[in-house]
């Protein structure tokens, strides 16, 4: 019976957050705590000739200065595997401070440990580091000539080239083609909380408080980097101040904190500064895409050719999978996608909200708009004509797809059919108005290992349910409390969900919008197992009113088991346990995820945007964003809608604000919140979010498809298409700037 799932209840972690009582990873009080700061390389390539640490070492309060000359050696660097696999998940296969070579600007070259943070920061300025600079490549423009086709990307998980049908034949038979080049700035995540780790050793046991999307990812990565048994490490993550991908993989700072703590024999806190967040935890890579679409005279796609070029590090072949969803969304028999890479003096890029989907779908969804214009079709109509009833490629059925309903409802909310579709037709005084739309889709990824949770019911009928997952602000702890209450058949107020601790049952990292689906599966399996176990105990107990009953006839609500047909016959869990002198009962649930479903299972959405463009100033203001999504089952309407809405604002920001510029010196030129633009309150448009009813029996037991990213996917294209409607300009570069519109 479902009573708690879906309800828009307030977050369980909310009171601690609004009163300031919540302890984030840089807030944990520990006796004897000291502070570490990292020092980054000033140059992007070359080597360190010398480091003079004497002045720093003699500064007030300084306990240690670690460099490649004295950093205690640990274990080995594990391979780069996305943290959803559930194993070690290093962000790049490079660990700093092992030798004098510099691969990228900001590469950590020293760690200074002092009694206070201010002392450590001051001492860091006293380090004298001499470098021998070498030539470098940090951008597409500099490295174009040396680009190579990737064999595999994304930690080896995806091929560098995907083809189906014959794309040249498809283009040859097309009545209309568009061939467009797209350029995208690099992006940085900039959650409001900078990454931080607090590390404390007790003998050979290590506890770290780490801001991470996966306590287990931190644990397994540290085990390998430090060569310490996993059993001797505990990772605690009570609160995370946002991530958006920069805490999805494990970078070097948790290991440096642990090494520093061991070196000075005191608990160490290592918090990255805002500036260091730009060169310590990955980024969305700068990129170019070339997209060619062919369609017949009715607008049906005959070919999609989609190539991407982007810089990666010197260690890893990483590109965000920009071509994936765009290759799967529409029915088109002929497809070719190719990733080309450039070895560059940057860190390995990483997951950034909608990693790939946002950039690839911006290209596809704006190109489709152009194609529709060329064919004289309504933008929504061309999407319906290419609607994929089954998955393109192998034709297997979708696990669920209510995209048509999303289109219909979104168009209704936007008044799409009533708008004047002619370019420049809508005005508000001197301001040009425009409407645009785009499709959203995001794959349902599955974790790489079994997901577990533990449920314990006490003799008073209250329950604790545990899983290791951290809540990065999505509301998963709240949603899991709801899932647990329904699984056990007890009231919400009687359940506590405990999470954010690697000592608790295994879950993979909460990444790729997969967290709610996989953890709800484990919690559901554990709580229903415990419920069934208690029902079985009652049926076997001669003292129970349910003795000998048919288990299929027993239901549980509000902690009381009863016969479906005779609700008066039954008893509470509490009565059962107390009669048996049991203090509690417990069950562990394991959910084995289905094999990868990301090809045939997606969240979908239809997005509409209204913009106002000031033609004299080139200013774009987004007035309204409308998103209607098929995200499967919604566990908590309040937190799910917040996630979708936040994602839509990310899309607006991707479209109009965000871009990290590479300076001529090979360093990020705008590494601060003052210069890296993110939306402020005044930028926020009116946002309407809805979800449609959707049942999915393939992805996981509760049919949860995820809401963390899909809200962002189509937003930028909808905005660009709206700008075209307002101004007639087609813009193929993100972010869109004032200069583009003058």
């Amino acid at each position, binding site marked *: 019976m479902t009573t708690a799932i879906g309800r828009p209840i307030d977050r369980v972690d909310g009171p601690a957050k609004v009163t300031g009582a919540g302890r984030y990873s840089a807030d944990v009080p520990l006796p004897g705590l000291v502070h570490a700061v990292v020092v980054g390389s000033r140059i992007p390539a070359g080597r360190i000739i010398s480091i003079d640490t004497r002045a720093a070492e003699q500064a007030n309060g300084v306990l240690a200065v670690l460099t490649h000359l004295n950093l205690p050696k640990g274990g080995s660097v594990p391979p780069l595997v996305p943290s959803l696999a559930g194993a070690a998940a290093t962000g790049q296969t490079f660990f700093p401070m092992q030798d004098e070579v510099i691969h990228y600007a900001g590469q950590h070259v020293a760690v200074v440990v002092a009694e206070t943070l201010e*002392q450590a920061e001051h001492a860091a300025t006293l380090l004298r580091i001499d470098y021998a600079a070498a030539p470098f490549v940090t951008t597409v423009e500099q490295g174009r000539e040396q680009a190579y086709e990737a064999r595999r990307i994304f930690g080896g998980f995806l091929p560098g080239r995907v083809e189906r049908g014959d794309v040249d034949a498809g283009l040859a038979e097309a009545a209309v083609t568009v061939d467009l080049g797209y350029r995208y700035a690099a992006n940085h995540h900039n959650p*409001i909380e900078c990454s931080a780790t607090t590390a404390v050793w007790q003998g050979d046991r290590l506890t770290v408080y780490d801001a991470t999307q996966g306590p287990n990812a931190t644990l397994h990565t540290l085990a390998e980097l430090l060569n310490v048994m996993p059993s001797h490490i505990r990772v605690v993550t009570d609160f995370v101040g946002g991530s958006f991908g920069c805490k999805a993989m494990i970078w070097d700072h948790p290991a440096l904190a642990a090494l520093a703590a061991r070196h000075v024999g005191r608990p160490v806190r290592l918090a990255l500064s805002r500036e260091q967040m730009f060169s310590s935890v990955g980024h969305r890579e700068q990129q170019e895409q070339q997209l060619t679409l062919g369609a017949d005279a009715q607008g049906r796609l005959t070919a999609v050719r989609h190539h991407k070029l982007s810089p990666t590090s010197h260690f890893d072949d990483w590109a965000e999978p920009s071509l994936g969803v765009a290759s799967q969304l529409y029915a088109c028999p002929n497809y070719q996608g190719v990733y080309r890479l450039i070895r560059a003096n940057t860190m390995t890029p990483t997951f950034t909200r909608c990693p790939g989907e946002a950039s690839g779908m911006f290209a596809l969804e704006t190109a489709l708009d152009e194609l529709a214009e060329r064919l004289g079709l309504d933008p929504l109509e061309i999407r319906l004509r290419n609607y994929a009833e089954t998955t393109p490629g192998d034709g297997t059925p979708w696990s669920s797809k209510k995209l048509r309903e999303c289109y219909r409802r979104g168009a209704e909310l936007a008044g799409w059919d009533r708008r004047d579709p002619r370019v420049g037709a809508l005005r508000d005084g001197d301001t040009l108005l425009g409407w645009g739309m785009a499709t959203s889709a995001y794959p349902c990824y599955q974790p790489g290992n079994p997901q577990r949770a533990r449920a314990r019911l006490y003799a008073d009928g209250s329950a604790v349910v545990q899983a290791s997952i951290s809540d990065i602000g999505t509301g998963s702890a709240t949603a899991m409390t709801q899932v647990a209450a329904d699984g056990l058949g007890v009231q919400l107020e009687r359940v506590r969900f405990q999470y954010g601790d690697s000592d608790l049952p295994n879950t993979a990292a909460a990444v790729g919008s997969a967290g709610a689906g996989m953890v709800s599966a484990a919690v559901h399996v554990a709580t229903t197992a415990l419920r069934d176990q208690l029902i079985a105990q009652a049926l076997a107990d001669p003292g129970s009113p349910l003795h000998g009953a048919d288990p299929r006839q027993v239901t549980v609500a509000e902690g009381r088991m009863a016969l479906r047909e005779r609700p008066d016959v039954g008893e509470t869990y509490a009565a059962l346990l107390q009669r048996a002198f049991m203090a509690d009962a417990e069950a562990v649930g394991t959910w084995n995820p289905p094999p990868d479903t990301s090809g045939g299972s997606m969240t979908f959405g239809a997005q509409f945007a209204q913009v106002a463009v000031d033609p004299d100033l080139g200013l774009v203001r987004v007035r309204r964003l409308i998103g209607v999504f098929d995200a499967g089952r919604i566990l908590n309407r309040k937190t799910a809608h917040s996630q979708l809405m936040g994602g839509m604002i990310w899309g607006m920001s991707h479209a109009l604000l965000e871009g990290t510029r590479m300076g001529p010196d090979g360093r990020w030129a705008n590494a601060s*919140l003052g210069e890296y633009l993110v939306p402020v*309150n005044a930028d926020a448009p009116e946002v309407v979010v809805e979800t449609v009813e959707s049942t999915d029996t393939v992805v996981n037991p509760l049919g949860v498809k995820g809401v963390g990213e899909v809200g962002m996917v189509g937003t930028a294209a909808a905005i660009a298409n709206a700008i075209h409607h307002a101004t007639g300009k087609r813009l193929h570069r993100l972010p869109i700037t004032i200069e583009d519109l003058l």
Partner: protein
Amino acid sequence: MTCTVNGVPRTADDVWEGESLLYVLRERLGLPGSKNACEQGECGSCTVYLDGTAVCSCLVAAGQAVGREVVTVEGLSGGPDAEPGPVQRAFLAAGAVQCGFCTPGLIVAVDDLLSRNPHPTDPQIREALAGNLCRCTGYEKIMEAVRLAAGGQA
């Protein structure tokens, strides 16, 4: 240094002149509710009251706070274990809290706004909160929370 924090006289020893008020609150006085997210006055996560004026505590040198009254987010609910106050309840009810890292600074900023202007218009709210960045919510729910708190409905 000595100052009054959340109504209680507090003393921190060995304060180095370069330390910020934010650092003293967080690391020396055990009040980590105020957050450090930029240390440059760009995000508002560290907002506290100093003699009744909302300020970015990362930009206030510890010495400037000597002998003055500081109120932090912890002080607005009467202590970490006390019941949330009206602005805090409004944030919960509106769903204006996601990761929560911007929240303490926002709670102080909103408290300040409503004490000066109990019934702000939307543009006034946006103006007053312009210095408080939130990366999760998209601000719409924060607006709703302020309207809720202003209407006394939380």
